[in-house]
């Protein structure tokens, strides 16, 4: 069984005090709790402060384009179903530039774990509004404040009946690590939207702001009740629920391809008889 140390420790390019630090720690703990060897795990990230996270642990990594973590993760998972594939990136990356892939991945219900560092701001590009920024949030790009309604990833995921929908908080390390473990263990798509304070550019949604509001969904809360989940997913503002909001039963997309039960696509033999038979159909 690997332990947290097996995931290594690296110098980061983050600001001191950033919510990404406890988040990174929770990811490693979640991986260790799930008992995964680094070489069996593939992280796929996009671009942003959050997207650097997998550079700061030991695992396989494909750090791709801004917004495109999910398609790359999908391709990799379909090519090698034996990999545990984790798509990790920021709110701008996953819900902004990558919004269409987010919808499609939820619909596919492919066996990926999606970790979103939701700091409600574009960190790396210095503080423009992100899709989850609150209405009225003032930035240099939105000097009169954000006008659009914030995107609610949890509600969207529940409304599309994604298999596993959770919200964590980087200030609640153990709780978060456990959500990540559960997400990894869930077969089908699992979303963990993680509230992650950005100390440099988001002076509204700070550690203190979140701490005052977050609460753990009570033990009796049944994440299999879609209607309740839908309602809970809309709760935001005074109180913000953390935990597994929804769990649905859906067939995993990976099962759509029977050939995947035979393992990775790499290194397979080409069936020459079959090739010939296919060619002969053109005779």
């Amino acid at each position, binding site marked *: 069984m690997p332990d947290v140390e097996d995931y290594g420790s690296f110098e980061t390019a983050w600001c001191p005090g950033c919510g990404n630090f406890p988040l990174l720690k929770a990811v490693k703990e979640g991986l260790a709790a799930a008992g995964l060897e680094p070489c069996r795990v593939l992280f796929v990230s996009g671009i942003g402060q959050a997207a650097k996270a997998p550079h700061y642990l030991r695992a396989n990594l494909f750090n*791709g384009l801004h917004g495109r973590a999910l398609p790359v993760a999908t391709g990799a998972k379909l090519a090698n179903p034996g990999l545990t594939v984790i798509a990790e990136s920021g709110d701008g990356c996953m819900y902004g530039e990558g919004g269409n892939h987010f919808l499609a991945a939820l619909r596919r219900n492919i066996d990926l774990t999606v970790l979103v560092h939701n700091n409600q701001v574009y960190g790396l590009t210095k503080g423009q509004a992100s899709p989850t920024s609150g209405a009225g949030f003032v930035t240099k790009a939105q000097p009169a404040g954000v006008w659009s309604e914030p995107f609610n990833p949890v509600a969207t995921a529940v409304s599309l009946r994604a298999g596993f929908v959770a919200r964590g908080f980087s200030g609640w390390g153990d709780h978060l690590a456990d959500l990540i473990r559960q997400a990894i263990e869930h077969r089908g798509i699992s979303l963990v939207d993680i509230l992650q304070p950005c100390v440099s550019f988001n002076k509204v949604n700070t550690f203190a702001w979140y701490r005052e509001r977050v609460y753990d969904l009570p033990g009796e809360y049944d994440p299999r009740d879609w209607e309740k989940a839908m309602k809970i997913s809309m709760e935001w503002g005074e109180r913000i629920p953390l935990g597994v909001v929804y769990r649905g039963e859906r067939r995993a997309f990976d099962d759509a391809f029977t050939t995947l039960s035979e393992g990775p696509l790499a290194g397979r033999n080409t069936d020459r008889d079959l090739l010939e038979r296919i060619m002969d159909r053109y005779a």
Partner: protein
Amino acid sequence: MRRTIVHSVGDSAFNVLIGGEAGQGLVTVGQLLAKSLVRSGFAVVVTQGYQSRIRGGHNSFSIRFGGGALAAPQEAVNLLVALDQETVRIHGGDIRQDGLVLLGEGLDPGGLASLKVPLRELAEERFSNVVALGAAASLLGLDEEVVVKAMSRTFGGRKAGVAEGNRNALGKAYQWAAAFDLPVESPPAPPLVPLRLMMNGNEAIALGALSAGVRFCAFYPMTPSTTIPLALAGWAGEAGLVVEQAEDEISAVNMAIGASFAGAPSLVATSGGGFALMTEGVSLAGMTETPLVIVIAQRPGPATGLPTRTEQGDLEFVLHAGHGEFPRAILSPGSVEECFQLTRRAFALAEKSQGPVFVLTDQFLADSYRDVKPFDIRSLEPVTAGSPVAGVKVPYERYADAADGVSPRLLPGLTEHLVVADSDEHTRDGHLTEDLDVRRQMVEKRLRKQEILLGEVVPPSLEGAGNPGILLVSWGSVKGAAEEAVSTLRAAGRSAAAMHFSQVWPLAPGQFLEIMRSAERVICVEGNATGQMARLIRRETGFEVREKILRYDGLPITPEYILREIQGGG
């Protein structure tokens, strides 16, 4: 309007054009007739003209056939099979003096030599297209059994009544047509030749990919590329492929990169507008050094343009697509065989150079059925994704320095080594860096791979001798037309040669520059409005191709078109 018809060597060939509305079953008739011709030993070249709609409008399916080898379409029509009046109006002018219109009793041949088929008498209306097929096949002297066999394959799976109805309609049509002759004989049945396949360009690309070991294809539908992923999807179950329709082209290219990174030889196929959305992904493949085969079936642009027509307008776009600098190769098949062979080559080059390789085709070739000698498909080697783990230096570095720029490529999850790839500039171990010395080294490492590609350039082909009076230079689907135009010129006693580029990037001037210099006149023949290949040649060699024969009305370049332009241009 009757065009001046320039007869080409194709006089030994015969051209049947079937025209009608979308939804009248004309493609089925065309395919069956073409298949029957191939089964009877003829060479065929099919040209499909259709519109961006599902029903109505005007479509055409023309089959040029002959006893020898054929590689180009033909404008002049010997037999026009008109399923509607519009066909007579549009194509009447293309009928040869000695040609014939075959049409239903209700239609007006407009003064052209014609044969009216008593459709209603011979079969129910829903079998009209088969009656037309039977009548045409009979006139062409095809053995009825050959047509029946082709038909039973196509309609075999249908509801009982349908197959029978078709069979009867065909028989009736054959009987009826037996009484008639064509004004000019169609080519005699060729001596028995070995079995040939009938395949269009897109099918050959799909089959080439399959034989090359493709394991993953992601796509978003876009005419005229869609039939490539559709063919692969059809084989996916039996052949163990994953074919996935993505939510958009951006996703398609990124999925393919992810799959390739994880070890599946991968392909995407699209057309210009969809490819535009993939250009960031192309750059990603270049930076992460991920093998990727990208097929682009061109159609006329800009923007949506003419979705179902042909053009060669995207050469420069594809050559420079993606920001930043990185190596690539662009193959441009000139025939259905080349679609197969060059797609295979694309997979090999992509793996070898660890980057994006393009197959640049177009609607004409994509949809052009031809007779094809069966490939020696058993003996062809598929690619192997990734490098052997044995001998890899530890700790493993994905971007380890290498004299030729190619680092060992391990696949994630398949060994105990960690594989780290990055779209940022990165150190040898794949982690992002802002070290500017490393940056310089990595740029140079990536660019060194261009040499590998340069070492494997498909040399341009040359038909005809050196020092020609006229040298026609073509690329991609224009090959057949240019070569046939040259044969015609030579048959008329003129000194001419045809040089064809089946690979347009990289160029190796040593392979062609001397020949160009030796020609009196060099003429680029391209399916675009500005002469993109001519510009590229000048950029790479300084040699200015002064004359151009260009076409940009959505139709393929024909031998006649070239000859008209040469004559027009003096």
